[in-house]
């Protein structure tokens, strides 16, 4: 009995943290709802202490809560096998008082920082393939710029609704998408041969050296047009789409797909992040606590990964995304939500 309790304590603590954090931040959601009469009427009266009536939270509380929440996200993201961006934007935009423009800018920088931290190691281990990443990145990063410009031009409620629908779509994808550890690629196609997209990596668990090649390169590259646009538009990291595209469509081994996807974010998100930054959508008081939180959380998550049950955490991630996707959808459509 003691063994069972000890075994499941980390998950109980994790679930408790999540349950405790969200009610704390939930009251903040009303601040960003511009359809309320209070928001439309104009500036709130300010008392001599410089705080708006009804907004007496100390200035450091929100950055601190942001740090704690992103720390938990970082842990959960590693264990659940998702990127920080796909959790960050829907959760923060749904339950924090920050406008979606700033959340997207921050989300891209958060995803970018995670990719920058992981990228060098993955490249050195030859798990991430620069040769595969560059042509893909050229398409994805160009389209991410377009996506960012579209996203910033559209009305907020349209983007919020689309974001909610996309997150719910990602949940479906997570349910249905299979993974192929070593896809069957009978022959490299002409495009991948011309671009020299093939490689060898060492499977650490067995010491085996695995040759890999890809096919359906053109279809894969075309998919990254859509992936890039969505990444830029919603501020999502796009890892959720990169991995299926590289693994299931193009036939790259799963480890190479995951590693290259992570590295790819450092390029794709850079282009979109610059657009948001140049448009003024970056607030340092949001970015730095989030960045530090996610990076620390990822660091801890990697340590826990050895003992954790990824399947359980993946279900936690799916439930979180379902909840925040529904929240974003109802917020965009100006419908009541259960919380």
């Amino acid at each position: 009995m003691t063994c069972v309790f000890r075994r499941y304590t980390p998950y109980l603590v994790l679930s408790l943290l999540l349950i405790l954090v969200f009610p704390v931040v939930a009251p903040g959601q009303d601040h960003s709802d511009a359809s309320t009469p209070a928001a439309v009427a104009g500036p709130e009266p300010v008392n001599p202490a410089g705080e708006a009536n009804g907004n007496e939270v100390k200035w450091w509380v929100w950055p601190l809560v942001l740090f704690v929440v992103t720390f938990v996200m970082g842990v959960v993201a590693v264990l659940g096998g998702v990127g920080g961006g796909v959790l960050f934007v829907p959760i923060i935009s749904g339950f924090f008082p920050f406008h979606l423009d700033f959340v997207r800018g921050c989300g891209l920088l958060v995803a970018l920082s995670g990719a920058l931290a992981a990228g060098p190691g993955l490249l050195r281990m030859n798990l991430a393939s620069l040769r595969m990443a560059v042509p893909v990145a050229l398409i994805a990063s160009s389209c991410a710029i377009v996506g960012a410009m579209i996203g910033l031009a559209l009305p907020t409620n349209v983007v919020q609704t689309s974001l909610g629908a996309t997150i719910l779509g990602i949940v479906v994808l997570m349910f249905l998408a299979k993974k192929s550890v070593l896809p069957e690629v009978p022959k490299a196609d002409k495009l991948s041969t011309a671009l020299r997209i093939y490689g060898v990596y060492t499977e650490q668990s067995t010491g085996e050296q695995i040759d890999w090649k890809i096919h359906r390169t053109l279809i894969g590259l075309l998919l990254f047009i859509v992936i890039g646009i969505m990444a830029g538009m919603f501020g999502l990291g796009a890892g959720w789409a990169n991995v299926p595209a590289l693994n299931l469509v193009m036939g790259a081994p799963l480890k190479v797909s995951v590693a290259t996807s992570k590295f790819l974010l450092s390029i794709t998100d850079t282009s979109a992040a610059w657009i948001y930054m140049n448009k003024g959508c970056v607030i340092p008081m949001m970015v730095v606590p989030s960045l530090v939180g996610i990076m620390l959380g990822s660091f801890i998550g990697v340590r826990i990964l050895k003992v954790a049950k990824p399947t359980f955490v993946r279900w936690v991630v799916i439930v979180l995304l379902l909840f925040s996707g529904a929240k974003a959808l109802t917020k965009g459509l100006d419908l009541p939500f259960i919380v």
Partner: protein
Amino acid sequence: MDAMPEPYKADEEQLLYAKVLATGMYIGLAVLFVTFFLYAMGVVEPAVPVDQLSQYWDGTKGDPGKKEGVVRYLDAMNKDFLHMDHAPIGWAWLGMLDRGDYLNFLGIAILSAITILCFLAIVPVMLRKKDLLFMVMALLEAAVLALAASGILAVGH
């Protein structure tokens, strides 16, 4: 006796890319942490007082005639604190490094600019290897990122 096979080594350009990426990341993070400390502790006075920032970050405060979100935020911030001819966008933050909040953009810009340097760093290697197609793609990618960074695409709200 056969030795265990060595892990397959990455190509020279991939290792160089990784090296530049790692170096730039550490520099960017170090700058970001230092500047944020200076900002949060009030050592360098910000343009927008930290205790009033929360009134603006929901993007609803200010002129209701302006689009809610970053547009209204920049306009309100400019009117209430900056008093500039135009709200600062693009690279305007470079001229505002004496303000604690804008000082943080230095670290953010370094982290965002590293990949451009990485692509430029591998160009000589690809040229030496006569891998011209890959070299052209690397240059194109650097150009795309530089275009995004330039601020040309950010004009007008």
